[in-house]
C-alpha cells in the first residue's frame, strides 16, 4: 500500500516536472512578455522573497512586508470566522424550529458574493486591518455556520435516545454527542471557508488603500508593468493555497479518523 502511494507520488512529480519543462519550452518559443519563462518567475520569487540573510530564515524584507501580513490577516480572519460559524451553527442547529426560522435569511446571506459587501465594510471601518479582518470573517462565517447547523441537526436519533436513556446532562450531550456528530459536515464547511478566506484576503489587498500584503505586491507589479513579479505573486499564492489545503487535510484526517474508517467499512 505504502509502496504504491510512493510510486504515484513519484509519478505525479515527474508529470509535474514534465509539464513545467513544456511550459518553459513554450514560453521560450513564444517569447511573449506577458508570459515569462517559469525559470524567470522562480528567479524573481527568489529575489523578491527568499534571498534574505540566514538570520531571517532567508526571508527578505519584501517577504516580511508581503507574505507575513497576508498570512496573518488570513489566519486571524479564518480563526474568527470559523469560531463564530461553529458556535452559531451549533446554536442554530440544536433546534429544528430555530433552524427553520433562520434558514431563509442565512441562505440569502450566504448567497451574497462577499466582494459585493466590501464597500459596506469600507464605509463602516475605513481602509485598514480592521476592515479587512471584519470582511474576511463575515465572508467565511456563513458556509461554516450552515454546514455546522446541518451537521448538528442530523444527529442520529438513536444517539439522542441513548443519551436520554443514560440520563446524560445537556453539556455531555452537546460536547460528547452532538458536536462529534456534526464534525464531518463542520469540516466540509471549514474546508470551503479556507479556500474562500484565501480569495477574500487577496481581494481585500487588491483594493486601493492597502499598503502591504501579497495582493498589494500584485497591484504594485501591475502598475509598474513588472510581469515576472506578477507571475511570482500568483505562483506564491498557488503554493500557499496548496500547502494550507494539505495542512487542513492532515488535521481533518486526524480529527475525523473514526469517521473515515467507518465510511470505508460501509463503502
Amino acid at each position, binding site marked *: 500500500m505504502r509502496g504504491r502511494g510512493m510510486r504515484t507520488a513519484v509519478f505525479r512529480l515527474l508529470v509535474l516536472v514534465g509539464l513545467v519543462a513544456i511550459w518553459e519550452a513554450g514560453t521560450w518559443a513564444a517569447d511573449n512578455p506577458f508570459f515569462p519563462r517559469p525559470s524567470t518567475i522562480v528567479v524573481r520569487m527568489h529575489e523578491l522573497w527568499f534571498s534574505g540573510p540566514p538570520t531571517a530564515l532567508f526571508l527578505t524584507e519584501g517577504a516580511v512586508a508581503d507574505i507575513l501580513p497576508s498570512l496573518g490577516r488570513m489566519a486571524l480572519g479564518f480563526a474568527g470566522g470559523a469560531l463564530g460559524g461553529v458556535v452559531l451553527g451549533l446554536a442554530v442547529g440544536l433546534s429544528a424550529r430555530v433552524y427553520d426560522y433562520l434558514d431563509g435569511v442565512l441562505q440569502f446571506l450566504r448567497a451574497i458574493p462577499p466582494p459585493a459587501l466590501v464597500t459596506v465594510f469600507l464605509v463602516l471601518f475605513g481602509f485598514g486591518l480592521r476592515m479587512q479582518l471584519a470582511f474576511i470573517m463575515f465572508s467565511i462565517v456563513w458556509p461554516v455556520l450552515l454546514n455546522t447547523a446541518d451537521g448538528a441537526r442530523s444527529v442520529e436519533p438513536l444517539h439522542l435516545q441513548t443519551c*436520554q436513556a443514560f440520563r446524560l*446532562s445537556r453539556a455531555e450531550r452537546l460536547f460528547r*454527542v452532538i458536536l462529534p456528530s456534526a464534525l464531518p459536515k463542520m469540516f466540509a464547511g471549514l474546508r470551503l471557508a479556507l479556500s474562500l478566506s484565501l480569495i477574500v484576503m487577496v481581494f481585500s489587498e487588491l483594493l486601493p488603500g492597502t499598503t502591504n500584503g501579497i495582493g498589494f505586491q500584485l497591484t504594485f507589479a501591475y502598475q509598474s508593468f513588472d510581469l515576472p513579479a506578477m507571475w511570482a505573486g500568483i505562483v506564491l499564492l498557488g503554493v500557499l493555497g496548496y500547502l494550507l489545503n494539505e495542512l487542513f487535510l492532515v488535521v481533518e484526517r486526524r480529527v475525523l479518523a473514526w469517521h473515515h474508517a467507518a465510511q470505508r467499512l460501509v463503502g
Partner: protein
Amino acid sequence: MLEIDNLSHVYGGGTPNEHHAIDGLNLSVAEGELLCIVGPSGCGKSTLLRSIAGLITPTGGQVKVEGNLVRQTPDNLAVVFQDYSRSLFPWMSVADNVALPLRRKNMDKSRRREAAQEALESVGLEAAGRKYPFQLSGGMQQRVAIARALAYRPTLMLMDEPFGSVDAQTREDLEDLVLKVRGHHQMTIVLITHDIDESVYVGDRVVVLSKAPAHVVGDLKVDLPGPRDQITTREHPDFVHLRAEVGRLVRGHATV
C-alpha cells in the same frame, strides 16, 4: 418492580395518520424476573419499551418502576437497543462508550475506567477497550452495548430485540451471555423479541402481545430445568410444548 397500568399510546392523535400502538395494556414484573415480551412485528413492542424507559410519554395509563411513576428515564434503568451500530458512539473508543453513562454516578475517572473494564470482562471483551466500535463485528458491538448497560449496574435492564441484527450463531452466544450475566448481577430484565424460541429459551416468563393496538393475550410461566443449554433445553418436551403454545398465541392474533 415494574407496574404497567392500563397503558395506551396513540401516535399522531387527531391527524389522518393516527395510529393506536398500545391499548389498555396491563403488566407487572417481579423483582429479579427475566421477562420476555413477544408479539408480531409492528405490534407496539418498541413503543412499550420506550414508555417504560421514559423515552416517550404515553397518551394514557401509567408506568411505575419501583413504585415511582415514570416521567423521565428512571435512575437505575439501562437500555440495550437493537441497532448497536447506531446506539454506540462511533467517535469514542469501546471503553469510553461503556464509561460514558457512569459520569452520572459520581465516580472519579479511574473508578469509571475500572468499572468499564469489569463490564467488558463480563461480556468477554476485556481486550477490546481501546478499539473503536467499527473495528468490531456486529455481535461484539452488541456485547459492548450490553457491557455499557451492565457497567451502569441497573436494577432494571430493558433490551429491545437485542439480537435482532446478528447471525444465528452469534445470537445463541448472546442469549447465553444474557443468562450468564443475569446470574452474576442482581437485576430485573425485560427483553423484547419477535423470536418465539428465544423468548422461551431465555425467559422465566413469556408475555404475548396482540398485534397493534397491543394488549396482553397470553402470560406463561417458563418452568424449564436449569441451567439452560442451547441443545438439551431446546429438545426438552416442556420447551417444545411451551414454544408451540406461544406460537399459537402469536399466530392466532397475528392473522386476525
